[in-house]
């Protein structure tokens, strides 16, 4: 099941399946760890709802929704046991 990364809720984990962005932007995102096969966890939303902070590759990276909605990912069933602690 492919869902846009922007649709994940804080606390959910996903595996990136596709970064549907132009090559240059893909490369930029890749430097921060967003690439096919990477495990990404949605951590929290900024107070005004956008951008959203993701935990990826051991660091915390914020993406705007306009970018996150172009990244497709499949959810990992690792539920509420890991809350945004």
């Amino acid at each position, binding site marked *: 099941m492919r869902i846009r990364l922007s649709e994940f809720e804080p606390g959910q984990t996903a595996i990136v399946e596709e970064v549907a*962005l132009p090559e*240059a*932007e893909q*490369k*930029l*995102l*890749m*430097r*921060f*760890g967003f*690439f096919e096969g990477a495990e990404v966890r949605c*951590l*929290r939303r*900024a*107070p*005004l*709802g*956008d*951008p959203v*902070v993701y*935990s990826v*590759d*051991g*660091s*915390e*990276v*914020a*993406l*705007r929704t*306009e*970018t996150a909605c172009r990244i497709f990912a499949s959810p990992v069933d690792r539920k509420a046991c890991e809350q*945004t*602690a």
Partner: protein
Amino acid sequence: MNQLLQTVSPSGPRSKQQIRTVALIGPPNSGKTTLFNRLTNLRQKVGNYSGITVEQHTGVMAVADQEITIVDLPGVYSLNPYSDDERVAVSVLNGNMDGVPRPEAVLLVLDATNLTRHLSLAAPVIAFGLPTLALLNMGDLLAKRSGSIDAVKLAGDLGIPVAIVSATMGTGLDAVGRFLERANSPIKTTLPIVQDVRECRKWAARIASESDYRPPLPPAWSRRLDDILLHKVWGPLVFMIVVGAVFQTVFGLGQPLSNALQELLTEMGQKAAPFITNGFLRSLFLDGIWKGVTSVLVFLPQILVLFLFIGLLEDSGYLARAALIADRTMSFVGLNGKAFIPLLSAYACAVPAIMASRTIENKRDRLATILIAPFMTCSARLPIYTLLIAAFIPERPVVGVFLGSRALAMLLLYVLGFVAAIGTAKMLKSSVLKSTPAPFVMELPEYRWPTLRSVGLRLMDRGRVFVQQAGTVILCVSLLVWGLTNLPLYHGHPPALENSAVAHLGHFIEPAIRPLGFNWNIGVGLLTSVVAREVIVGTLGTLYGRDPQTHSLSLQAALQHDLTFSGAMALLVFFAFAMQCTSTLAVVRRETNSWKWPLIQFVYMTSLAFVAAFIVNHTLSILN
């Protein structure tokens, strides 16, 4: 935490050459700058690489009685020349950068807590074939958060020596000296195709797992702190308090300090002046050189106060959170959250604001921020605003006792500047500075206690850059204006202001400014205030033969006599828009590393001021 691994050196070919220059390279947020400061112990120089906006930091470090030059390369994630930063790094490593000797060795700084990601940079760096030492920085944090790495295995895989260090604590750094004493070229290992980011990424992940890399646990207390600082309610509240504190301090502490310094320097100049007997030379010293020096130095308190705050915010990790909170709002004008603090600072003074725009990585966003910052109502506009409002706007209650007509006028001028800034930003971002839709990606670093050393270094660095580089331009313009006000000589004496070259210029430009409702007196004021906006009040005082300090009322009366109401309003609007500030222009030149942008900015703002003043003058004349 002090493991230098020379295990890989025996089979490597010995480099014969003496090492004189070494390059320091690493991704952003790898603690590279802290390390650079540690290694060089303040013995640094800051400049610009020729032709681009990238700052060049070089320092000197002593290794076994030898002085070795360290070139601190800009923070890069890869060596594919996409950005200026990457191009600079590649050129320096290739030895193609003017004025920088080719480095004979490389120090590669990687964040040990982020190793899987940061290792991608190792491949292209090692591929250069220069003797390289990998420094796994923040080794203390890695251990503290239960992560680990087998440095011996990593060194074997990379073919270069590896040391675990902590730049903040200063541990493990003796490895650098030992490496530089007998640096060896890397041993041949299989590297990925270094141009392929994806390949490098995969390679990095493989190397990390082969060297038993155990990433650290999530930073628990950082996340707990974020639960509050990025909370829906508390987050914005703390943000406002922090922003208020910054604004209040820059304005409330920086401004009085600047004023006090101004008084002190003026007094010093006047104390020294009697020692110069020749009247002409005394005037050159006092009104030309010393006034120039003063006008440079009075900016220092504000710059230092602002950078103290920015240093604390950035080093603690809060600046990234503030940018995250402000991002949504800033995106409406096409900018991102990182532009918020610089733009806010511009309400006090555009100079430190423009220098602070350095925290914005996206070059176009940074340029847009630099170009709109001078529209914000800075404190230098207040003297002329206050004078004209007092002279031309009668005090009447507008909203009961809460808002009078004068306060309303002042408020409108603030709004006017803000609207001009926003409008310009929108215009720039939808045309010349339209970003290649580079997505806004921002790393949120772990919270850390800022260190006195690193904040202090930043203050010294910024202060020095401003005084050295902007100072020269300001001094030149100040001397030029002095020359124009004191020439031509009549019987060996400087002329009265109304007979000076600047007055002739004032008369000369009068036809151009007459449609705005200004006479030649105002013209002279506009010309002299190119040094700084507040200068116009003093000039007008001299021209009308009245001391603005003691005869404010009579200066107001003189202005009422010379200016119509519509002309006065036009003058206010002119000052809201015009780029009457050499310091700002000098800093923009310094930050963009060319005269192109300050020139464009000057022409744009002055034309806008001209057109707006024209419209205001004519509309109000018709209405009256």
